[in-house]
């Protein structure tokens, strides 16, 4: 089946989809982390002007959609990851369906709130 099996549409339960999104969001976060660290380590001026200009560019309405998607990745990966860790310790395995539903609702609520805050910070 290979990696392509992660994206197969039919015949999969919601747990498989949670696994697929966990992987995808993990890859997105890894790429973002690499870009973030690469950028920070290339800052040469000590005044902080380059950093400030970058922040001014990224904390703007044009970049809001990317920030919102990045936060979605982070929130989903964190909350779903915590659910997986619980099961890996053998905790609440019998309640895996309700727990997944709770994790998804929680991730959605945190993401919507964070998106609202970011929207507010960029000037509404």
């Amino acid at each position, binding site marked *: 089946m290979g990696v392509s099996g992660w994206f197969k549409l*039919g015949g999969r339960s919601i747990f*498989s989809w949670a*696994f697929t999104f966990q992987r995808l969001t993990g890859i997105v976060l890894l790429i973002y982390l690499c870009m973030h660290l690469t950028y920070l380590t290339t800052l040469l001026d000590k005044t902080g002007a380059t950093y400030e200009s970058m922040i001014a560019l990224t904390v703007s309405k044009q970049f809001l959609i990317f920030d919102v998607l990045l936060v979605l990745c982070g929130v989903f990966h964190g909350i779903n990851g915590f659910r997986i860790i619980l099961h890996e310790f053998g905790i609440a395995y019998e309640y895996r369906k309700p727990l997944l539903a709770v994790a998804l609702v929680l991730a959605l609520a945190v993401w919507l709130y964070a998106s609202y805050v970011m929207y507010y910070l960029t000037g509404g």
Partner: protein
Amino acid sequence: MAEFKIRRFDGKKSFWQTFEVPAKKGMTVLEGLYYIKENLDSSLAFRASCRMGICGSCAMKINGKPRLACETQILFLGDKITVEPLDNFRVIKDLITDFEGFFAKHKAVKPYLIREDVKYEEPKELLQTPEELNEYYVFTLCIKCGACYSVCPAAATLDGYLGPAAMAAAYRFCADSRDKGNEERYEIASSSNGVWRCHLAMECSEVCPKNVEPAKAVQMLRRKTAFSILKSILRW
């Protein structure tokens, strides 16, 4: 009439073929396949034996999901049925897949009671309480049909991975109060192809036709293995 769309393989190429099967109430997908073989195309190859969900031979992908053909009724699925061989197995012909590696992995976890005091010449009764039996009973129900292995994303990307069925069998014996071979199995389970490769997609538990919960067994085995490693590090 039900339309059977079957993914076939002749040893060289894979192709789809469609058959019309007269479906009756209570008729299973396996009976439909036998109808095709006996009346429409005798070259159709599939594996089946007990016809009552015990042997696990007839596991195949039916309408995109691994199921036992003998326990799946045609009319519950509608009038269009798609039948494919299981994923994550090498296809030999049509719906027949190669289970040699799957059984080798099962054998590798030593799925039998290990005791030093057992002699076949002098059989010994090994007593067990109902509570001790309940610790592992559900995992004894595995029929080795391969449905769990076929949906496992870890098995899909790593050929050597032991897989859910083998590790459920390992846990079944590790949780058995009569068994004394835990340490041997923990060593196998903690290898690079063992419990740590499971990503907990839990699809194996979702498709198991016997509700064995292999994903739970893997996590329980993982916990036991972790404690065993910790104990050996601390020389406890």
